[in-house]
């Protein structure tokens, strides 16, 4: 696109911000914005000039479900009811949770010398301070026990699903995670085999009843080393 003259650049930036620059011309200008700081600066000046007009439009309160949708889609839906002021997860907390889980596993192995059941495989949570599920899987047995450590109800119409992540290969479902109490289930041979070669577990948010495809379809909200 020719914007050799400052006037031409100004006119294009003005039309871009106004919204009258459309179609392929708009796409090309988008690319220029990303590539050229002068173009970006001209766009920002126009965005700035118009702010007051947007603030003068009537504000509209969003419906109740909108925020829940954003939480689910951003992968931060770690509980049904957000507690005010509650912090979300961040990488430091995830690492801390992972370290805790590994320690728990190591201590378990050492103290129990590998044959006492049950054995904690992982503690899953949004962060170390908010564990949601404890996963137990005694070696040489095919049982998987899931204990809910704090309220973990999925948004209406959705379910949390647990996955084994084999080192080579696709995630294998280990079933739905309960919202309260605990469940013990017998793993199928394929699930057992997948779990034995996995070094991580994951939790995804799926349609009610679980993924329709057999692979995670919704946002993955937790990945945890085991």
């Amino acid at each position, binding site marked *: 696109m020719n914007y050799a003259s400052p006037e031409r650049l100004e006119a294009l930036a003005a039309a871009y911000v106004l919204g009258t620059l459309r179609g392929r011309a708009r796409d090309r200008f988008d690319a220029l914005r990303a590539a050229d700081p002068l173009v970006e600066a001209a766009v920002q000046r126009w*965005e700035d000039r118009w*702010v*007051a007009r*947007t603030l003068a439009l*009537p504000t*509209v309160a*969003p419906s109740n479900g*909108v*925020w829940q949708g954003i939480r689910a889609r951003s992968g931060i839906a770690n509980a049904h009811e957000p507690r005010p002021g509650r912090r979300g997860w961040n990488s430091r907390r995830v690492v801390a949770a992972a370290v805790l889980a590994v320690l728990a596993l190591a201590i378990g192995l050492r103290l129990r010398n590998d044959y006492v059941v049950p054995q904690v495989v992982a503690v899953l949570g949004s962060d170390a301070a908010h564990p949601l599920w404890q996963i137990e899987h005694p070696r040489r047995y095919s049982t998987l026990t899931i204990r809910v450590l704090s309220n973990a109800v999925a948004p209406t119409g959705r379910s949390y699903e647990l996955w084994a992540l084999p080192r080579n290969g696709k995630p294998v479902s280990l079933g739905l995670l309960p919202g309260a109490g605990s469940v013990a289930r017998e793993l199928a041979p394929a699930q057992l085999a997948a779990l034995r070669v996995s070094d991580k577990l994951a939790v995804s948010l799926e349609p009610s009843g679980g993924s329709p495809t057999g692979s995670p379809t919704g946002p993955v909200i937790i990945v945890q080393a085991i």
Partner: protein
Amino acid sequence: MRRSVGIPAVACATSCFYDLRMSAARSVVEPDSAELEALLRRCAQRDASALEALYRKVAPILLGTLLSMLKRRDEAEDALQDVFVKIWNQANQFDAIRGRPMAWLIALARYRAIDLLRGRRTSLVLVDTEALDGVAAMRDSAAGNEGEATQADLGGALQRCLDQIAAAQRRCVLLAYERGLSHAEIAQTVNEPLGTVKSWVRRSLQSLRRCLEA
């Protein structure tokens, strides 16, 4: 999570009119820039509580803009979700040096709406626009003449410079900025030739810039 667009234009002309009128609140003062910047920085560090705080502060402003452009509440709320998911994923791209966070947030919302409008049928936009013009007229007449009173405490310079543009030409520019209309849609709405509308808009923007930089 997009919903399909299936409501006939006429039904929307009524329901959107209703939506705007029933839920519209008064215009707002700009949220504090330093506070918004701090929230965006925390979002970049994956602090979900910062996204929620940002949502509480700016979602009603952004939804006002989105509804004004998209007309349909379900689409506007879907777009609002798109915008906040994008804020969460791209908060680290906001560079405080470059300017006001509110300008960046508004731009994210408006550009999302413009993208969505691209694939839309013209007739839907035009029918809805008439209904919305009615809402705007009600708002303006309630507040005084031609929006002056609603603007008095906000962006005095912008409004003063807009007021220097002839009314018919100013209307074209505002149909683009506030309703997201294309040149062709504006031409149909104001019943002027396309070439006239294009040159009105171009010259209005030039004069706006000269006035604001003076």
